[in-house]
């Protein structure tokens, strides 16, 4: 029996075409991160995030023969999950984004509001601010600061030119700062 723990995601993805049960290995590796990503960009509850993730993995299974060996499985599955989440989120009313203090620090550090983030109230406030942003700005901030993706990975997940990613990230930070000042510094 091959030792799947030592195999890369890409190698396992190829094997799923032979033995579909192996999709469990990929789900196990990615479930926690992907569910957190789904919740952050859409604010849906845990049950809904599980439904979205299930649909995303079914879609990934359907399109497995289109998965290119040159791609990273990680960016590929994130793109599918992102598209499924947006598609699901647009059909439902948006709910509140929820962050903890550690997560709030990640974004606050870059936006020079770290000094305020010690107060738990501001972690909640940062969550509110993220919830107020347009989905395209929220997604890019979450990919950059919570998923810690590089620009080229963000470009591949969102299917945008690299230049557009840089511009959109700059705008997202500007809008975040303005909203933060408006909502959290009343």
């Amino acid at each position, binding site marked *: 029996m091959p030792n799947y723990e030592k195999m890369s995601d890409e190698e396992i993805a190829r094997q799923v075409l032979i033995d579909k049960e192996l999709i469990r290995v990929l789900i196990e590796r990615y*479930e926690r991160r992907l569910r957190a990503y789904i919740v952050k960009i859409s604010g849906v509850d845990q049950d809904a995030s599980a439904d979205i993730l299930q649909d995303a993995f079914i879609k990934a299974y359907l399109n497995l023969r289109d998965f290119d060996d040159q791609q990273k499985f990680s960016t590929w599955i994130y793109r599918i999950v992102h598209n499924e989440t947006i598609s699901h989120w647009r059909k439902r009313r948006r709910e509140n984004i929820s962050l903890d203090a550690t997560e709030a620090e990640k974004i606050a550090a870059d936006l020079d509001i770290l000094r305020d983030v010690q107060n738990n109230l501001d972690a909640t406030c940062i969550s509110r601010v993220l919830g107020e942003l347009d989905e395209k700005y929220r997604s890019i901030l979450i990919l950059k600061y919570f998923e810690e993706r590089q620009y080229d990975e963000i470009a591949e997940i969102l299917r945008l030119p690299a230049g557009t990613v840089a511009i959109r990230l700059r705008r997202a930070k500007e809008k975040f700062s303005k909203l933060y000042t408006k909502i959290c510094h009343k």
Partner: protein
Amino acid sequence: MSQINIADQVVEKINGEKIAPHTVGYFYARRSVIFAVAGIAVMTGALAMATSIHNISGADWKFFRAGGGSVWSYIGASLPFVWLFFLLLFGLISFLNFRQFKTGYKYPLLIVLAAYVGLTFLLGVGLWRLGVGHFVENKVAAGVPVYRNMACAQARMWSHPENGTLSGQVMELGDEVIVLNDWLTMDKWRVLVNSSTKFYAMNNLQLGDKIKIIGIAQDGRIFVAGEIAPFQTGCSCGCNGGMKKHGTCGGK
């Protein structure tokens, strides 16, 4: 919901609904459609470009200036707006289609449009040299009344004998007299040509030629030609006898 449940649910759904990965053939077919759309967009753009070049190459700034036209009226009379609109439309279609390619998303809109315009320009020049632009212009004008009316709207700018401009199709040709059918009124004009008449971008006048003239109108529908140039327009709708007032083919 626990970690194991999602994996169980996914495998259960795959087995229960007998879901199978799309075949290689499915992806080849999808890519073929994308390539086909790309090809159609480029070829349509090249045709639009060839026809635009045909229309623009028929405009003559010196001739227009001699008639007292301004830069803006020259642009308005010369630019093939319909074809430029189609070029832009298919440019946008090609951009949206290009994004469907695996790495297509990496290229911004301006770069894709610039590449599209460049490629259609090169192809369009080739098609124009083969006479395709002229052919398309006349065929579309003959078959599409709306386009014919637009082509004729531009042609009408050259049909104001009271202001010294006249255009139409050569119906009879003599040594010093041309009988011209005005496509606005369908009136037959006797155009007097002499040694001081200047010809632009044309060597010999022939029966059926579409021309525009700057000169002086006289009583009895006589027009003394000062300058004559070819008139590349679809306005004649491919038939003899000029145009009716409302712009449809005359047939006389």
